[in-house]
């Protein structure tokens, strides 16, 4: 367990694309599903191009962050499905913790800035 965390630590910080792809795979899904999910959860702010996604999936398969998990139908056609591995899950959890910590510190600073503005 300790080993897994240490291994996961090496992947941080994630690029925005990698982060979105990994959290899209909380439920196993195919490539097109990932693109749709990323657009949906980011409120259309992040668009994932197929070239970027294909490169990222190939990398993540090689790094052992995701694995193949059979096939699923998309409009009558078979599509390969990807799922998080144990390492992939550990990376997602660690990255979320890291971002939360950053966000907490930021909010404290923001509160002090707001208080300072009131005084002056």
């Amino acid at each position: 367990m300790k080993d897994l965390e240490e291994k996961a630590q090496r992947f941080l910080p994630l690029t925005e694309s990698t982060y979105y792809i990994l959290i899209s795979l909380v439920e196993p899904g195919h490539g097109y599903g990932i693109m749709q999910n990323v657009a949906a959860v980011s409120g259309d702010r992040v668009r994932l191009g197929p070239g970027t996604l294909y490169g990222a999936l190939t990398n993540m398969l090689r790094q052992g962050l995701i694995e193949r998990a059979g096939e699923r139908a998309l409009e009558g056609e078979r599509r390969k499905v990807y799922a998080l591995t144990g390492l992939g899950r550990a990376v997602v959890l660690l990255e979320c913790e890291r971002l939360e910590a950053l966000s907490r510190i930021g909010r404290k600073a923001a509160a002090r800035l707001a208080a300072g503005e009131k005084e002056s």
Partner: protein
Amino acid sequence: MKTKNRKTVIRLYWAWNDNREERWLNRMAREGWHLTAPRGVFYKFEKGEPADIVYRLDFQTLRRSDRKEYLELFRDAGWEHAGEFSNWHYFRIKAGGGSPPEIHTDPASRIAMFRRLLGLLVIVSVVVWIPLARNLGRDGLDGGFWIAVRILQAVVAVFMVYAIHKILDKIARLRKGRDGKERI
């Protein structure tokens, strides 16, 4: 070479200028010439309705088993595979109203693409340089034919160095253009 509805255009494609290539294909499409097959320096076009078509190039060395998956991913996202040559894949999509559609949506993946190209160039270079080095060191290879062979090899070898330099420069520029927005 030219009939009414088809034509072949000869053009050199420099990999580090992929955006220029994309703009050129877009201009051709606006004139109604749609790419049917890129074949090295020969580009085959078919006449059709003029249209605002966005072209994008991807460099990808695919194993046979990954090919279907790769092409399906682009098709699902709305891109048509217009053709391929030497690991360069030509994709196109109708231009919409908003920002131009992209197949690479972060600088890291463009950098990775040029790194793949660089890897291939280095391998090809070694294949070119080894026989040149062996030829130069060998005696008894005089006469016009061998001089011509050496000159040709030297030209190719120098060009490979130039191409590698241009790709390295392209990667460096892409890295510089990377802003802090990408990583949090």
